[in-house]
């Protein structure tokens, strides 16, 4: 930046005509620094004064009032970055303190550039300031406190992008010169990573900046760490929104419903119910509200990041990391609710590679004897839910995985288990979970599999009947709602020859066995990819999500496909494709096939549900995720 006016007291080497060159300023600052590099009692008073003046100019506290001051500041910073090797951490501690406590958000573009250049130069001085420099940069990932309110405004968003870019550039240039800097950076990021308690603005800006780092040069070294840190944060937020919070709402609704009328489902009543809960929900934990809000925003950022890296062709690489951290954290987090949708979204961007990999990984975990039972139980829950809900997974993949699961179940009951009757369902919970997964997937996919002759043949060759007839009797232990729906579809498709229904009276919604199998907390009732409840990030999941209302069932006009083709899936998308329908599944009984299926396929928007989401003050629409539940009444 050419030559700048400099205050006379700064200038030690003035030339007669009153001009001062950059190099003269540099050398004068170098000289000041050199002269105070002595024990304090040996420094001349004049030098001390000059040094003090330098400190005043390079001070983090004084806002730069006018252009002159700013220019002076910039010049001083530039001069300092020219003489970094003169700066000692013993004699110039106060100067360093000033520099490292600066906040780049306070300054204009020129000052920012100069400051970041100084920081980059300091960082590469051997053995001295690397840690402080990185720490300073990472601290600036977040805006200062006074800006928290404005940071969402569009003007500041632009500015934030620019600042993020500058920070990334600086970090990259440091890495270019000090190739091991990312190791240190990793430690600092871990230390400064905000927790789930941090305010939303801070959390969002930090995560945004951190993920930005992932996509540039530093990402090569730190990719896995950065992503897994973000996933850990998501899980943290996730587990702080408890199922109880959601269940409580649901509980309210059921109770209310019971008061209004009997439990038998009816759209009108249901809507009254949810409206009430919506009102009740407002007074509910403010904390939870904020938590879901935060989670929602972070999800949006992460999804956008995944999307942009998919555009750059780095998806497969990122996916490796995601899946690794999924295995480590999400899979074993007890009934995680939202974080798993990151993987869902990543899979939807590349179903052939990522989707397949994810499905196979989960099946491998389930089948592997080396894994611990809890991981296996949650893996099977994931695989069931994933294959049912992920619209992008091809029928061929579904059929091969179903085949593998059925074979595993068959081996289990005929090779491993003795021929005992169900005495201890808990002991064989893996088997039951496997059977339930097969049935659950088939509830969603049977019709599609039937439509392709090769896959239909595979399906018909599966030893399903042999498994269901085994003395372990999975049909009596698995969730009755799933069993009912499965049997109904299987009968309609002639998949099962024997009349299994007879041994299951229709009124038996929850058998004693399935209750004994683990109660509410049991893992087989966990459907990780049930409809997504976060408002803003929903747009990423929705297009690829299979809602129960859109599932083609075998019993609905199995022989004439044309009827179903009339239904426009898009219209179902925009409307309230509902969480409700899954409950209808729970409540329906096999009376009139046609009537019921019409009901299930209903695409009429439900006004109340819409209101609950659109009015927006409560992020979780006051419903359970559309889980298939054994019973509507709280246990």
């Amino acid at each position: 930046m050419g030559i700048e006016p400099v205050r006379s007291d700064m200038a030690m080497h003035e030339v007669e005509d009153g001009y001062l060159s950059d190099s003269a300023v540099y050398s004068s600052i170098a000289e000041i620094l050199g002269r105070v590099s002595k024990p304090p009692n040996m420094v001349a008073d004049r030098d001390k004064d000059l040094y003090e003046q330098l400190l005043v100019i390079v001070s983090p506290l004084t806002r730069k009032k006018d252009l002159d001051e700013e220019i002076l500041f910039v010049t001083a910073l530039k001069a300092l970055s020219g003489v970094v090797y003169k700066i000692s951490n013993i004699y110039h501690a106060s100067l360093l303190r000033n520099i490292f406590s600066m906040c780049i958000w306070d300054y204009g573009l020129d000052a920012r550039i100069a400051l970041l250049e100084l920081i980059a130069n300091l960082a590469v001085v051997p053995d001295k300031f690397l840690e402080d420099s990185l720490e300073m940069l990472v601290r600036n990932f977040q805006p200062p406190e006074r800006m928290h309110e404005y940071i969402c405004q569009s003007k500041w968003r632009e500015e934030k992008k620019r600042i993020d870019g500058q920070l990334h550039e600086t970090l990259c240039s440091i890495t270019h010169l000090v190739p091991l800097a990312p190791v240190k950076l990793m430690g600092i990021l871990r230390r400064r990573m905000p927790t789930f308690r941090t305010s939303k603005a801070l959390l969002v800006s930090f995560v945004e900046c951190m993920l930005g780092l992932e996509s540039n040069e530093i990402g090569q070294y730190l990719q896995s760490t950065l992503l897994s840190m973000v996933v850990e944060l998501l899980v943290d937020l996730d587990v702080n929104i408890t199922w109880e919070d959601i269940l409580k709402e649901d509980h309210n609704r059921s109770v209310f419903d019971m008061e209004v009328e009997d439990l038998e489902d009816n759209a009108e009543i249901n809507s009254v119910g949810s409206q009430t809960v919506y009102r009740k929900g407002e007074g509910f934990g403010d904390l939870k509200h904020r938590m879901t809000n935060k989670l929602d925003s972070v999800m949006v950022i992460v999804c956008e990041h995944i999307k942009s890296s998919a555009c750059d062709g780095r998806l497969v690489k990122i996916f490796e990391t995601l899946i690794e951290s999924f295995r480590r954290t999400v899979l074993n987090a007890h009934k995680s609710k939202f974080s798993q949708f990151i993987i869902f979204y990543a899979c939807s961007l590349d179903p052939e590679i990522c989707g397949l990999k994810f499905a196979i990984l989960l099946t491998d975990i389930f089948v592997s004897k080396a894994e611990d039972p809890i991981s296996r139980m949650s893996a099977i829950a994931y695989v069931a839910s994933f294959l049912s809900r992920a619209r992008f997974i091809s029928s061929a993949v579904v059929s091969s995985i179903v085949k593998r699961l059925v074979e595993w179940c068959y081996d289990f009951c005929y090779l491993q288990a003795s021929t005992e009757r169900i005495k201890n369902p808990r002991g064989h919970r893996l088997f039951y979970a496997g059977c339930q997964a097969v049935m659950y997937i088939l509830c969603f996919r049977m019709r599609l599999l039937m439509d392709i002759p090769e896959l239909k043949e595979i399906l018909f060759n599966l030893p399903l009947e042999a498994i269901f007839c085994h003395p372990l009797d999975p049909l009596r232990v698995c969730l009755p709602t799933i069993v009912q729906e499965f049997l109904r579809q299987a009968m309609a498709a002639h998949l099962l020859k024997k009349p299994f229904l007879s041994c299951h009276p229709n009124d038996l919604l929850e058998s004693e066995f399935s209750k004994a199998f683990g109660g509410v907390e049991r893992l087989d009732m966990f459907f990780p990819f049930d409809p997504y409840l976060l408002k803003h990030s929903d747009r990423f999941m929705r297009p690829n999500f299979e809602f129960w209302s859109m599932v083609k069932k075998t019993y609905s006009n199995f022989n004439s496909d044309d009827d179903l083709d009339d239904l426009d899936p898009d219209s179902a998308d925009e409307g309230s494709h509902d969480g409700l329908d899954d409950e209808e599944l729970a409540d329906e009984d096999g009376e009139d096939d046609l009537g019921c299926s019409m009901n299930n396929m209903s695409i009429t928007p439900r006004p109340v549900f819409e209101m609950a989401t659109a009015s927006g003050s409560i992020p979780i629409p006051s419903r359970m995720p559309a889980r298939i539940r054994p019973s509507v009444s709280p246990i």
Partner: protein
Amino acid sequence: MEGLMVSDANLTVYIHPSMGNRIRGAILSQLSSLLFKYDEIFEGVLLAYQVDGRSRSARILPGLVPYFGVKLRASLLLFSPKPNMFIEGKVVKLGRESIHATVLGFSSVAIMLEDIRAEFKYKTRDGVGTFTSRYNKHHLIKVGSIIRFIVKSLDEEMLHISGSLVPPNTGCIYWLSKHEVDDASQKERGTKRNRADGVEENALEQDPSFFRSSKRSRPHESKTRKE
């Protein structure tokens, strides 16, 4: 280049029982965790390893956690720079005040102005900065050239080396390799010329303040009025 060596090591790797069914993987991951970090036992940085053989028997160690120790022999490639060693590195950044280089792609080196011998003069041509020797214009250091320097000090944690180009047999390795043979004569010629130029020239090279004052008296191209 000095500082690189291969050493044979007898190691005992402690393995957690959970890794009991994949010993080889566990050994490799243990050894890999040492890579690119300074280790006081090796007195250097482990760059590569090769497991030569391991004993068939492993001993379960007494204690609360039943780790077991597997004995093995491995050859390790170590990088252990010490002060006054000659090391080679690639220049990645060059400025008026400093030269930055990386050694073996991971260890960074900074050579500050005070550690660059007066023979080298900073010049910019077409916006590209170089340090060029006063005695031989073909001896120049620019971004991308490989230089040999001497280790002044070393931050072991970050492998951040402070280097020096003061000794005469340091500089751009391309030039040095060509002229090493007549190194002696070069030196002689250098001293002769120094003597001929006289004391003033020496002072100019060694005393920065002198250099500055002489520069300041020159007219400058762009100036703004001082307030």
